């Protein structure tokens, strides 16, 4: 079993080491998640259009896009619930089309709906899915103990699912997703409808899952959530993947106008006058001890131009104490990359 016993022989649920993939077969060179030229047509609608990306071990990959962009369709294909029209997706190197049973044992899928049973309490629900994933005896007990502890559902073990709050149901679904210790987790809108505290807790859980070596593919509309938790993001629109990389990488690729703030010793007036004479600098404004301006430049040479501007200021005798650029947030990048079109 994947659960490593603690030093005293008993399971320690809260110890991440108790939930490591220690006995999993040796890792291969295949990435945990790979989508390769994935296409899905629904009639004349091209829901997923030649999407290709990979997610590495211990990486959290944010999958963002407007409604109807093709996020859920790609995720359902990855979870073996749908089939691609062409292309393929792989989990730990196994094709989701040709080897769905091997994929299923390695993948935890959390859809954007709860999927709960009537007349079942929290413990029975998790116990059922543990059995469904083939966990038996003490292995199942340890898995249940760990998941209950990890998701903070210990005190609600005997409570009927129907009586749980939305946040608690979301925790329960996350627990169900990880009950069999999958190496890959696909989470579709896990933070939808949660209050701020629940969101923070969910974010922490996802970070911990990544620390345990799981590859996490997560979609969300709450971009600030993703920006904090994701190592990389993929932006999808009209079924096409329009950008992949870290937020900084995508920002640098799309940035043409960079907002800059300069703080200096002495009067700011001469600097304002100097800046206004420089080419590619616009929107110069001054306030107390700092000056703000926007530098336009080609994407590839933006860093070089910023360095030239700073060198020019110092060369002109300005005593610069701070020179900072305002990086774009994920929301800025998203709005810049996507055009808000739907199909």
């Amino acid at each position, binding site marked *: *079993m*994947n659960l490593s016993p603690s030093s005293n022989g008993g399971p320690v649920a809260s110890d991440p080491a108790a939930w490591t*993939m220690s*006995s*999993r*077969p*040796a890792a*291969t060179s*295949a990435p945990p998640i790979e989508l390769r030229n994935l296409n899905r047509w629904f009639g004349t609608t091209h829901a997923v259009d030649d999407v290709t990306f990979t997610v590495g071990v211990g990486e959290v990959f944010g999958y963002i896009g407007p409604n109807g962009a093709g996020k859920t369709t790609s995720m359902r294909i990855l*979870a*073996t*619930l749908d*089939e691609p029209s062409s292309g393929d997706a792989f989990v*730990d*190197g*196994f*094709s989701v*089309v*040709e*080897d*769905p*049973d*091997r994929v*299923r*044992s*390695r*993948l935890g*899928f959390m*859809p954007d*709906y*709860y*999927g*709960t*049973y*009537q*007349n*079942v309490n929290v413990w*029975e629900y998790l116990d*059922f*899915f543990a*059995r*469904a*994933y*083939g*966990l*038996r*005896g*003490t*292995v199942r007990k340890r898995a249940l103990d760990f998941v209950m502890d990890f998701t903070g559902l210990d005190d609600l073990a005997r409570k009927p699912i129907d009586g749980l709050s939305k946040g608690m149901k979301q925790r329960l679904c996350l627990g*169900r997703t990880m009950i*069999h*210790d999958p190496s890959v987790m696909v989470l579709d809108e896990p933070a939808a409808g949660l209050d701020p505290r629940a969101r923070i807790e969910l974010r922490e859980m996802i970070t911990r899952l990544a620390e345990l070596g799981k590859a996490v593919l997560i979609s969300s509309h709450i971009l600030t959530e993703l920006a904090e938790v994701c190592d990389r993001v993929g932006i999808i629109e009209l079924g096409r993947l329009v950008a992949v990389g870290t937020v900084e990488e995508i920002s640098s690729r799309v940035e043409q106008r960079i907002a800059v703030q300069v703080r200096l010793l002495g009067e700011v007036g001469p600097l304002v006058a100097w800046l206004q004479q420089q080419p590619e600098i616009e929107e110069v404004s001054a306030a107390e001890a700092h000056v703000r301006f926007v530098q336009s430049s080609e994407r590839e040479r933006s860093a070089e131009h910023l360095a030239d501007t700073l060198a020019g200021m110092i060369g002109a005798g300005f005593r610069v104490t701070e020179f900072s650029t305002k990086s774009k947030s994920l929301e800025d990048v998203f709005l810049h990359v996507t055009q808000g079109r739907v199909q």
Partner: protein
Amino acid sequence: MAIASDPAAMTEPTPARAEGGFWTRLDALISWLGEGLNPILVKETRQALKSRQFTLWFVLLLVACWITTVGGVALVGPSIYYVSAGGYLLRVYYAVLLLPLTVVIPFNAFRSLTAEQEENTRDLLEVSTLTPWQVVNGKLGSAVLQMLMYLSALAPCIAFTYLLRGVDLLTIGLLLLYAVLASIGLSMIGLLLAATNKQRRGQNFLAVVFAGGLFFAFSTIFAMSMAAMELDPGERSSPAFFWIHLGLLSLYATTFGIVYVATAGLCTFSSANRSTPLRVALVIQQAVFIAWCAGMIATSPAVGDGLLAIVFTASIYWFVAGAVLTSEPAELSQRVRRRLPQSLVGRALFSWFCPGPASGYIFAITNLGLVLLLWAGSIIWCRVTGSMPLASALFIAAVCWAYIVTFLGLGLLAITALRKVATLTLLGGFLVQVLLVLAASGVPLLVQVLSNRVRLGDATLYETTSPVLTVMRLTDGQLDATEEYLVAGVVFSAAASVLLVCLRLAGREAGLRRVAKPQRVIEDDLSMAPAAQPVPTNPWGDLAVRTARTEEREG
């Protein structure tokens, strides 16, 4: 699966190793047994025990039994000591039992699968490592468990009817057996219906139709059971009674097998091989059918005039089966291709068990041909043809086979052509096959309605498109020798032409080669296989062997 297949992890203390008192050991034994239970059965049992619906039905059953018992005893009064009142009470108890067994339990089985769709849990089951067989077994097991609870509740009442006299143990046993088999069979049909449609609207429609069908089944089974109770005890112990019931049981068992396999197939991922188990189940049922027919022909001279019924039954059976098989997707997944037969003999014999529409076509017509050949051999061997000349009986059988070859082949070609321009599901393909036969059967009627000349003249040529009409005329002896030659010419040449074209498609499917497993799958299989233990081949060690050999050489 990585977790489940880890043998070290799965080692659990067996009950024999458990220590402590009796109750501790019993608890350990129950826990140990519980580990082997189907997860769905465990979950559904937990749900059922908490559900109001089950409680309500159970209480109603008990109340109905109590009222029957008290009312019955009160009505009979003191004469209960010498009147045989058991039979009358059994009828009421049976009606009370049959309602939950043939209506409530099968409908619950149907609902339990459709509810998975409604409550968005079907996806969760599909992404788990539960096999489709486990899902079907779990749902069916849950139905059986409910049935056992109802039966156990009614057992004292049934025993009471035996004590009251008027009914023998054989009758009681047979009635209960029929009720149980009916309940299991109807539950299986409910699961099949639930698996066929994933759309809510379709499921609602099916629910209404199925509920109506269940009430019809309840009333029919009850009526038949009451008729069986009226039988003379001598009839119930006659050989004919035994053989008829054995025949019905074999029909039930083989049909149940087909429905079971089909249900599991509908719950299986589309890249898996869903066809081979179904084809095996069909062959098993055919083998049983052949055995019964052979037995009838060999032992009963009176069967002569009913011989053609065997031909017609087999033809209809293989047309329906062939219509389903020829509607399968043409593309074989890599997963299926990994297990294709490799050797020449294997490909010649077993390619027809592999998925594919053209292989399904060959499978259906070959099986029908086999049945008819055995049938022909039997009647020639046993000289049993009834009032019909042997040549006519054989001719009719050959015409039936030719019709099936032609229509299934044309349907296959139509489905193949349609799939080039549109998406056609299994159901769509089946409908194409049925519509083709209906259209061809309607041609003679259309021609006769539209043309006075044809109506008055010889219409045999037009009627050859209609299998039912032509075979009916042949059976009734309405065609003269010339017309029979005409029918034979048209039908056999059409069958030969269609078969030749379809053989090309079948050859293409049979020619598909096995593909190698991906490297990642091989690696995974190797990592999951237990490490080979070194086997001692020489208890004295290699050194002793080497020394002995050296001594031999030197000596």
